[in-house]
């Protein structure tokens, strides 16, 4: 009897995790470059009560076997790297990676204080006090890019070429070339917060290359990539998860009532 109680409990636990994941997606609906994730479920082990073809007590052949499952579990939360909507900001250091007309799951590379390289789709870049191009959290872009104090305008081309017009000059000077990284399995990257992702064994090593080449996407200056969370989709998923949770809870109640009825046989 306790089998069905536990089975329903696994269903509730899985839906709870599903809701946790949906909440995080919804909380980040306004996070630049955020990628939603999705919980993936699988069924658990099966217990074979009687195998087909074995004989029952009186020699009758059992025609079909009975397999009873032990519930469900979450096996993975998969990040969905669908392109988010792009919004114009007119800020020279806001860069979006777009895949219009060119395939691409490229990432900006940033250097963390401990020297490791992290990856991000958040291109809301800033200038630090010493003229370095950094992320909102102050991590330097890789390869490093510095822009002098007297720059009048900054121009980033779709292939990542950075040109700066200094005050008192007539021609823009090339100050650097930005580079993107791509992964064979971006879903295997590990999120570490602050919009940053780390390379893992599952993602495979980073492959670096120039923007506007196949597989990297191209850079749009003055734009930011919004999160790819669709509020309507998430709300539908949430309703579904909540109702599934309720049905599981109802199954627990029925199992409970069955046990109660059993206990009341001899009144």
């Amino acid at each position, binding site marked *: 009897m306790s089998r069905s109680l536990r089975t329903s409990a696994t269903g509730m636990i899985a839906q709870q995790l599903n809701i946790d994941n949906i909440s995080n997606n919804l909380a980040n609906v306004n996070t630049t470059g955020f990628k939603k994730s999705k919980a993936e479920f699988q069924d*658990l082990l099966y217990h074979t009560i009687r195998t087909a073809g074995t004989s029952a007590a009186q020699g009758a052949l059992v*025609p079909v076997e009975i397999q009873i*499952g032990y519930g469900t579990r979450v096996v993975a939360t998969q990040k969905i790297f669908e392109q988010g909507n792009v919004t114009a900001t007119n800020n020279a250091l806001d860069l979006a990676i777009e895949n219009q007309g060119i395939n691409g799951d490229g990432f900006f590379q940033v250097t963390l204080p401990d020297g490791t390289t992290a990856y991000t789709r958040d291109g809301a870049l800033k200038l630090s006090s010493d003229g370095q191009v950094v992320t909102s959290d102050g991590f330097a872009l890789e390869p490093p890019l510095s822009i002098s104090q007297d720059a009048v305008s900054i121009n980033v081309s779709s292939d990542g070429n950075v040109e700066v017009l200094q005050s008192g000059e007539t021609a823009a000077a090339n100050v650097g070339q930005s580079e993107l990284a791509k992964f*064979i399995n971006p879903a295997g990257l590990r999120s570490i917060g602050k919009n940053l992702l780390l390379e893992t064994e599952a993602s495979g090593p980073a492959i670096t290359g120039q923007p506007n080449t196949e597989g990297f996407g191209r850079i749009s200056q003055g734009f930011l990539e919004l999160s790819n969370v669709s509020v309507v989709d998430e709300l539908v998923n949430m309703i579904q998860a909540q109702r599934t949770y309720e049905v599981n809870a109802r199954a627990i109640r*029925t199992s409970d009532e069955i046990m109660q009825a059993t206990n009341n046989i001899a009144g």
Partner: protein
Amino acid sequence: MLQGLYSSGSSMLARNTRQDLIANNIANSDVPGFKRDGIFLKELGEARRKASGGYPSWRENRVAGGFIDFEQGALRQTNSNRNLALNGPGFFHVRTPQGDMYTRNGEFSVNNQGQLVTNMGYPVLDERGGEIQLDSSEFMVKEDGQILVQGNEVAKLAVHDFEKDGDGYYQDPDGITRLERKHNGFYLPKPGVNQVAKPAETKVAQGFLEMSNSEPIIQMVDMVELFRTYEADQRAIRAQDETLKRAVNDVGSVR
């Protein structure tokens, strides 16, 4: 003793088993490609007729067997190119450390070696039984399973099916199931069951997932029905218990 006590008791045991199955169906109502379980109960009369001894073999005989209902699940659009659904009978072919298995859950991804794998990381196989090397997370799967990367065919996805009976069930003429259920949505054919070509009507749909065919409404109705039957049986036992009590304590007592 009263035979009716055994009849009511045997019915209650069978409903317990049915509740176990329903609980599992409900718990898996969000697993893509999950197929619901059912059981059939046997009439008690038949079980009694087969009984050789005088003592009723009520304990086991009511549950005649279980079956997996392979009815097609609804397709849900996910917009992820790694999600594949089968519309029609058939299974994806997957290589696991426990040997080759078959599944209808098309929630796939690409691993660090650029191969198409399940969400447990097991390689999905092509028609020739080899692993599918994509080398790119951008790929297209056509209705017939052909996989294209940048317009070039790299492999053809394996979609296998197994012998069915005349009514389209995976059962042999004696009604014995031909597929055994494993965990993680896998199925394994019983020894001696032949693999057959995939039916022409089966199509691979990219960007879709096949939802579980265990619909909560049906499970709820089944659950309510089983519980009320269980309750009725319980009342019947109490009533018979009362009768026995009368027989033992009151009949024949001289006042």
